[in-house]
């Protein structure tokens, strides 16, 4: 029998909120960078590519620590934000940033694969028919990248739901404030007699992941049928 405390419900709600916010906020930048990496020819492209993919290979704790240095009260960015009354560290916003950084490479990779599959002649045709590059981007590349965008968003959302290492460093594990599902499971796992609670949240985690994957597959199949 699944058992949940009010704090568990808050952790589930917060996890979903953090994952949705991180995914939505990352989409525009992810799309732009995917476009630049797919179609751009410039110096430093390799470096940009490495930087974007770096979170894939770095331990999340390391990412969290870097974010702490950057966003902490005395950090380069955190100090400036603190001066105008914005506090990031140990708030749910920090969890969003941690999830966004960790999941970003997955988003960009999927979008890029989607863009690379677009026939270049469609883009050439659009340009010779009078469309500026930004017009082509919005009317041809964006709609034809839908599968890549959905795949990338699903992956990033799922990764954000499971984010632990960077989040615990930069947002802490404050019940009702920054405690997401993985952090709550971690806390239950470390407390004797809380196995049922931990297992209940694990089940929720599995169900959420299943929903995301099914959504991904259904949307993918729909788009294939449409094309």
């Amino acid at each position: 029998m699944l058992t949940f405390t009010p704090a568990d419900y808050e952790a589930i709600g917060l996890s979903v909120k953090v994952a949705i916010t991180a995914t939505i906020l990352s989409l525009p930048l992810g799309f732009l960078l995917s476009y630049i990496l797919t179609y751009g020819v410039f110096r430093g492209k390799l470096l940009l590519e490495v930087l974007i993919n770096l979170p894939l290979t770095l331990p999340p704790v390391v990412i969290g620590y870097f974010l702490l240095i950057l966003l902490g009260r005395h950090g380069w960015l955190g100090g400036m934000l603190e001066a105008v009354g914005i506090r990031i560290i140990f708030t749910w916003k920090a969890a969003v940033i941690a999830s966004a950084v960790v999941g970003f490479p997955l988003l960009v990779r999927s979008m890029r694969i989607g863009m690379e599959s677009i026939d270049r002649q469609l883009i050439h045709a659009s340009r010779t028919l009078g469309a500026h590059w930004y017009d082509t981007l919005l009317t041809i590349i964006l709609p034809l990248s839908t599968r890549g965008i959905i795949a990338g968003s699903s992956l990033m959302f799922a990764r954000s739901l499971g984010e632990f290492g960077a989040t615990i460093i930069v947002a802490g594990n404050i019940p009702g404030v920054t405690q997401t599902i993985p952090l709550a499971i971690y806390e239950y796992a470390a407390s004797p007699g809380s196995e049922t609670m931990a297992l209940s949240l694990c089940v929720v985690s599995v169900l959420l992941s299943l929903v995301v994957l099914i959504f991904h597959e259904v949307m993918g199949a729909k788009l294939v049928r449409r094309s």
Partner: protein
Amino acid sequence: MEMKFKAGKNYGDVAMDFDFAVSGERVGVFGESGSGKSTLVGMLAGLLQPDQGEITLDGESLFSSERGINIPPERRRIAVVFQQPTLFPHLSVESNLLYGFRRTLPEQRTIDFATLVDVLNLEGLLERGVNNLSGGEKQRVSLGRAVLANPRLLLMDEPMSALDDNLKFQIIPYLKSVSEQFKIPYFFISHSLVEMRLMADQVIVVSGGRNAALTTADQLARARMGHSPVGYINLLKVKTPRRIDGLFAYSWGNQELLISAGNDQAEALFELSSKDIILCKRHPEAISARNLIACTVANTFVSGNRIGVELACGDQLMVAEVVESAAEELGIRSGSELFAVIKAVAFRRLG
């Protein structure tokens, strides 16, 4: 249309350098695969930036390395019909057709959508998605879309090479009627001499990344006759077929041709290779060939080790080829009277 082109691009060790000036409405660019045709199209359309040189169209500089000019593709008003019909798969036929039209300044929209749809016979297709269209329909939509963008020059980059033979020659009347009705000058790019002769008045021959002097498609076909395995292809427009003994008797000017591969359509276009015509000094008798046409030699020319013989058959002309010794033995020269012997199965229907 007046085009001056003197520009080039290097791909490692391979240099593409084109230098020509051409004026006219129906220009062909002829060359084999890998000759540089696509590079030329890319540079003209603004999709490929030359390393150096100058390109002007009707006096306006499209590219000049010296003056730092490179007009982007969307401002050149040079539309392209690509080899593969590159239709936008997420848009309907109508939205595809209107893509360029909507991006054209209202004062430049001289082509009426309904007229174009009528000319290209697209009425029933407008609401449909593009993925279920046939190859010929797709290419007609692609052509219509380019034309509706109201270009000052249309580049047709091997628009028929992705179609099978039957569809190929169904699309030619559309290509012709669009350019004639809407007065859009075009560059027709192809590696097919037959297509060149149907579509172009002047031809730029491209080979190894360079171009030769301008010629006509017919002169080019004659020059290549002796080097080509198919010889010179005569294009014969015939009409009013009648069925006779399992064959079709067509009117060819004031002549009649008996053809095996005919049908009941009122007009047809057939090709006949110069290699499939036998010349006789006297009327042959008891012969299986169904066409024995009295003709006069209008002209002769040399191509490789062959003699091309231009024959006036009534009010029509065709070219036969013979080897030198045959020409000598028959005493072939301008004014000679001969019989052309052609089998009924030697004709191939194009459209």
